[in-house]
């Protein structure tokens, strides 16, 4: 047992911090701080900048284009990126389909897709949830029927994040309606979003933003070579992704940055609002958040370094992280007082006569708080996670 950061780790942190200095364009950094959904242009540019340094897939094994760093180094790297107000790179290529491809994909598929994921030239989206199966992937109804060398896809997906940014989708489909999903009924297909028969309908969320979509498939023909692995492996692929997701979704680096911003914000608001803000109470809430975030960070460290692989632990991280993110933005909105009632329009942010004449940290907060209500719902609602823990850890 060695509970300290080694001098080498500290040197690595210093090196990354220096290398990142000035790398995030200032307007991109401002947009990241403001907390609206990142623009496609920002995601693309940042992906390219990272790739220029060989960092686009820092968390991947070296043989697939990753950095070969230790898990702790990756953690430090991500922390420094967040501290520099870099956007979190688009999730679906680098976090989901990339690892899927190098774990389950054919060599041809890897060669075809991985380079453009690393450069950011291809954006992906994930076709998992459906109108009738939010947290329940076993009830996927979108079908893919084999017809010679192609699959014909029909059905519907919902909550598809960044589908309107994406060039390609990896999509969970039913290839055998007679087999239970867990026993070979599901498969994973990959196809361009421009394939005929695909319709993307924006779904506006309660924050007024557009980050998710509804997708309709009408006789969408996908070449059979775009099947990932073998037919019937879709359930295994989905489980692989969900396990990864629950730890990445802890988003500790971003949370640490947000908490630091929260402290600055409280100090500025108190200074500018002449005593109306109960700074003692804000400090108490910040201190509790800090403690809870420390716990989350060390739980993540235990998992990325120690690697229990226990699904109950991963589910616990998802619960804590999602609730923490909600509490942090709730506090942020509380701090800014009556301006937390204003619906700022993302398109107006460059004007200098914004409603309520707000300090620069205000405009994205209310929308972000509303959007983050989704964190306890998506990627398996927290109720689902508790069920997993009860079952996996205690046989309940």
């Amino acid at each position, binding site marked *: 047992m060695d509970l300290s950061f080694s001098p080498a780790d500290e040197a690595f942190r210093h090196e990354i911090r220096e290398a990142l200095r000035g790398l995030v364009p200032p307007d991109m950094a401002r947009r990241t701080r403001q907390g609206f959904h990142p623009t496609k242009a920002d995601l693309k540019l940042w992906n390219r900048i990272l790739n220029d340094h060989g960092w686009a897939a820092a968390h991947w094994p070296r043989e697939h284009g990753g950095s070969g760093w230790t898990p702790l180094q990756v953690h430090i790297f991500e922390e420094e990126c967040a501290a520099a107000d870099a956007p979190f790179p688009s999730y679906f290529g680098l976090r989901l389909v990339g690892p899927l491809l190098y774990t389950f994909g054919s060599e041809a598929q890897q060669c075809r897709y991985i380079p453009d994921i690393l450069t950011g030239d291809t954006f992906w989206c994930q076709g998992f949830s459906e109108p009738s199966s*939010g947290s329940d992937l076993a009830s996927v109804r979108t079908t893919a029927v084999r017809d010679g060398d192609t699959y014909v896809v029909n059905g519907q997906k919902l*909550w598809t994040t960044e589908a309107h940014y994406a060039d390609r989708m990896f999509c969970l489909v039913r290839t055998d309606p007679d087999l239970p999903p867990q026993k070979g009924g599901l498969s994973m297909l990959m196809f361009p979003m421009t394939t005929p028969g695909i319709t993307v309908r924006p779904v506006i969320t309660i924050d007024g933003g557009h980050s998710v979509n509804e997708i309709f498939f009408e006789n969408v023909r996908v070449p059979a070579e775009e099947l990932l692995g073998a037919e019937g492996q879709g359930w295994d692929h989905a489980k692989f992704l969900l396990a990864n997701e629950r730890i990445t979704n802890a988003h500790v680096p971003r949370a640490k940055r947000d908490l630091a911003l929260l402290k600055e914000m409280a100090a500025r608001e108190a200074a500018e609002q002449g005593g109306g803000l109960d700074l003692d109470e804000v400090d108490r809430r910040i201190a509790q958040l800090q403690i809870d975030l420390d716990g989350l960070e060390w739980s993540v460290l235990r998992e990325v370094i120690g690697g229990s692989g226990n699904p109950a632990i991963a589910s616990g991280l998802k619960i804590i992280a999602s609730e923490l993110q909600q509490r942090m933005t709730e506090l942020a909105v509380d701090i800014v007082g009556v*301006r937390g009632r204003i619906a700022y329009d993302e398109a107006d942010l460059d004007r200098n006569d914004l409603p309520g*004449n707000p300090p620069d940290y205000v405009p994205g907060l*209310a929308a972000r708080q509303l959007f983050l*209500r989704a964190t306890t719902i998506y990627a398996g609602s927290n109720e689902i996670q508790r069920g997993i823990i009860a079952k996996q850890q205690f046989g309940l």
Partner: protein
Amino acid sequence: MDFSLSDEQAMLKDSVMRFVGDRHGFDKARAHATAADGFSRDDWARFAELGWLMLMIPEAQGGIGGRLEDAAILMEGFGRGLVAAPYASTAVVAAGLLARAGGADDLLADIAGGEALVALATEEARSRYDLLHVETEARVADGGFVLRGAKIVVPDGASADRFIVSARLSKTIALFLLAADAPGLEIRRYRTIDGRRACDLAFADAPARLLMHDAAETLSRAVDEASLLLAAEAVGGMQAAIELTADYLKTRQQFGRTLSKFQVLTHRVADMFVKLENARSMLLRGLAAAGGGSAEARAAAVSATMVTIIQAGEFVCGQAIQLHGGIGMADENAVGHYYKRLRAIARTYGDLDFHRQRHLRLTVGDRSAA
């Protein structure tokens, strides 16, 4: 003490419940929200016909002389139906201030007839809900008064044709009236998170009519009453959100069962109900305190009510979204709108922090006076 509705109150309740169509009005509410005013002028005309706009105008000034409990019955209905009309601001708060100020019978008649919309502007960039923190200044000019300063996030301000504005006049706080098209008044209109329309006001020597000087306590009472009306609206909204959720659990299937078979979800609904009923009790307690007793007792009770309402609203409507799952996050579903309205109410005239501090100061915190 008697909690039952009088015959008149029962009729009022029946009437507003019929108006909001037993919570089938979400499509209508959404359509109004996207209109320029954020509410329906037709509805407003209907309110005038129903006599609701004169309910809170004293009989001596041509109204019905209703009590705050009566207006609260309407507001609870509006909360249920997500009705965005500026009822509390114009027909209760502004009408009440104009009636107390006197000499504004014509304007009161216009309010009663649905022809005037009057908004109260108190909040400033640095005031943080403190009605006594007023940087807007009034001074005498050309035999009248002019205002200089600014107000922000005026509730229902975007559609108002007149404003009642608090301003510093020598050492006291006075109330002024001016029209939306007054010279020297600049208005910036915008949406709030609940889809309603507020505005900022900037006064550059804008001429205004003095309504009342030394108005601090009158203003404080008016805003406390406004808070209680929002509390009533919140109760109606929470109830609707809970009912939507319970209905959803009975129909939605997941993992091969209707959600109502999952005990954690049904117990969550039970907790929501418990918080709603507690909030309803605190609304009644607040209304009781507004009906008599000292200004301090009223303020402490109203803040206690608002603390409860704000806490309950966040839990009830937040969990209503949670239990709806993904669909609760969609703007096209009603449940998120209740959440947003509750969060908007939770930062109008005061937020959790403000009401907690004020309650504490007026009760346990005041150890020096104990």
